[in-house]
């Protein structure tokens, strides 16, 4: 099929349960090295799916593909039935769309100038500048019609991280990436950024929308902090929080954007068993109370077995097993991948 339809085409989930996220043959190469090879799987709505595998299995790479940090080399990921992430097609062509209008104006201007119309020249020059500004802004704000125009022209640009968030996916990081010098509350407020509507004018002149929003959001922010067990730490700088609390704060920050799918990248890494069990409990809570679907990355199998409905095992970038925790645990390939050859027997 042509690039256009390919790009425009959406997909229905392969699975029987309604899939919130569907990955199809996702492959990512770095130079010669293949980090993820032809991974396809579904995340049913309202479930907790775990992606496990030993170090170097390509979990994080796959994760970053979903989060919009990396374009896949092949395959695509669709969210809520809409193609979200895929290899960009003819991305280089996009700048031409910004320049085209102003170039036309400029040419017209030169034409007018050459026939001696000074006023025409001035107007055209002005028009060229304005058009350029407008089209640049359009290219950055990317209104739907602009995207549709691009798709019709066969240009597809994979979603950027912030667009992924706006579609309802938020994440945490394996190595904590809080805003170290902001307070806990400010971190959560940043998490709410995509939901806040106050614009420059509102904030500059403290209009009602700004005031209302600020008070509401600060209130809600405190609730989120309380939800993950950080009540009263609003004004603590993130960098001064203990390790476990930083992990919790990251989750609060992720929840603050009201996601439908939450991506957790080794959320229990470096925690002691007690903290780990609390954390695991929190996942169940989030799913049951907030109805948020969770994709969990772990290489510690014991952590995931408790909470997961489905487990997918990656090794050397390939899916080697998929199914319920019990099935996966029994799978000799998995045991081999974790414990090395011969361990299965």
């Amino acid at each position: 099929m042509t690039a256009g339809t390919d790009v425009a085409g959406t997909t229905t989930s392969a699975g029987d349960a309604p899939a919130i996220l569907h990955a199809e043959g996702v492959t990512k190469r770095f130079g010669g090295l293949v980090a993820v090879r032809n991974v396809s799987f579904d995340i049913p709505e309202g479930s907790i799916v775990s992606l496990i595998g030993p170090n170097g299995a390509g979990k994080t790479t796959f994760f970053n593909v979903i989060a919009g940090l990396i374009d896949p080399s092949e395959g695509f990921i669709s969210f809520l039935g809409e193609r979200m992430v895929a290899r960009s097609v003819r991305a280089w062509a996009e700048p031409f769309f910004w320049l085209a209008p102003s170039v036309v104006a400029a040419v017209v201007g030169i034409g007018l100038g050459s026939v001696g119309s000074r006023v025409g020249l001035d107007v055209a020059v002005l028009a060229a500048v304005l058009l350029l500004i407008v089209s640049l802004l359009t290219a950055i704000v990317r209104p739907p019609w602009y995207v549709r125009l691009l798709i019709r022209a066969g240009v597809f640009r994979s979603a950027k991280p912030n667009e992924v968030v706006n579609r309802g996916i938020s994440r945490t990081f394996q190595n904590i990436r809080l805003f170290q010098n902001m307070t806990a509350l400010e971190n959560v407020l940043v998490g709410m950024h995509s939901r806040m509507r106050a614009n420059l004018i509102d904030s500059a002149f403290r209009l009602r929308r700004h005031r209302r929003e600020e008070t509401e959001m600060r209130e809600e922010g405190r609730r989120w902090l309380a939800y993950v067990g950080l009540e009263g730490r609003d004004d603590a700088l993130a960098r001064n929080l203990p390790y476990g609390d930083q992990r919790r704060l990251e989750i609060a920050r992720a929840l603050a954007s009201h996601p439908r799918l939450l991506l957790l990248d080794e959320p229990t890494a470096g925690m002691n068993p007690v903290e780990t069990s609390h954390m695991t409990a929190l996942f169940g809570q989030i799913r049951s109370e907030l109805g948020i679907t969770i994709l969990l990355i772990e290489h510690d199998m014991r952590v995931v077995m408790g909470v997961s409905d489905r487990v997918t095992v990656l090794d050397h970038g390939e899916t080697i097993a998929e199914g319920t925790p019990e099935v996966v645990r029994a799978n000799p390939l998995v045991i081999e991948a974790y414990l090395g050859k011969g361990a299965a027997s």
Partner: protein
Amino acid sequence: MTSMLASNPTIREARSFLRRHQSLSILISVGIIAALLPIVATVPPFSGFGNQRDFVGGFADAGVFVLLALGLNVVVGLAGLLDLGYAAFFAIGAYTFAYSASGYTGLDVPFWPMLLVGAFVAAMFGILLGAPTLRLRGDYLAIVTLGFGEIVPVVFLNASAFTNGTNGITGISQPNLYGLFGIHGFGFTNPWLYYFTVFGIIMLTTMILYRLQDSRIGRAWVAIREDELAAASMGINTVTTKLLAFAIGASTSGLAGVFYASKLATVTPDQFGFTVSFTALSMVVLGGMGNIWGVSVGAFVIYEIQSQGLKQLNNLVQTARLPTLHLGPVTIDWATINFLNYQYLLYGLALVLMMLLRPEGLFPSRRRREELHEVDIEPSEIEPSEIGPGALGGEP
């Protein structure tokens, strides 16, 4: 330690009070300063350096640089983008007013609305420059803005059909109050009117910038500065947000440009060289990046040192008739030293020493101090090819 402060109830009280009545407190404090400065100028030793009117005129010019520093602070201090072509927007603002209120075009648009128009036009050009380049790695911005700062004067110089070339535009009209307080045109001889005008502008700018600083947008700026990737993953459109910072910085610069043009009544391309950008940057850095009060004071102090301090130092040294030093081959005859020549040397040294010894500036903002003194490598913004298997600290 800061968290301790933060948790200390009285200080929190004070903070929240200031937050609630921030604008009011800004109005009052700026007003007090504006009232005090001319008085300070009349007491020794300052009174010896010149009469009050001269000082007031100097303060009005210092105000222009305070505005420049305030705007640049949004770009460099809050959003962490290095803009080295800042003077370009200053020039654009100035020429905008020159076009709309001079004999060159025959138009005579009043000064006050043009403040906004100039700011708007400058912002537009900020977007024009920022949009294509802000998508790129931060360092590219530094060099592109530097290039832009070089181009704009070149354009004003060479596009003589539109700009009257190297002679620039003269006979730009002054602000006018149309009889309000019995004042009509500001004229050239009375510095007081300009002084109060520029302080009024500074007052409003400061207020707006403070409000932006602790709004959704301000938080986004800081977030981007701290960890661009994380910010993006929290749903912040880094490009638009950076562009916004860039545009606001530019507009403040344009505002200053309009005032400058109407005070000076003439604009020529060679008034907007790299030296202006560099001076503004020094002011922001020395004042304390990210701290609105800090950069304002920094800008004011540096400007006064430049326009008064060094001259007085010259007079002092030359009247003191210090003995000539003979350090082996080197002979220092104090009378021959013109400290005005050492100005850039001093700026350069100041920048380096500041960064090495006190990166948060003379008047640091709390956050910046925290940030600039951390020794651990902060998570650098993600590089394209950095995203390898297990980038972001993933497995190799």
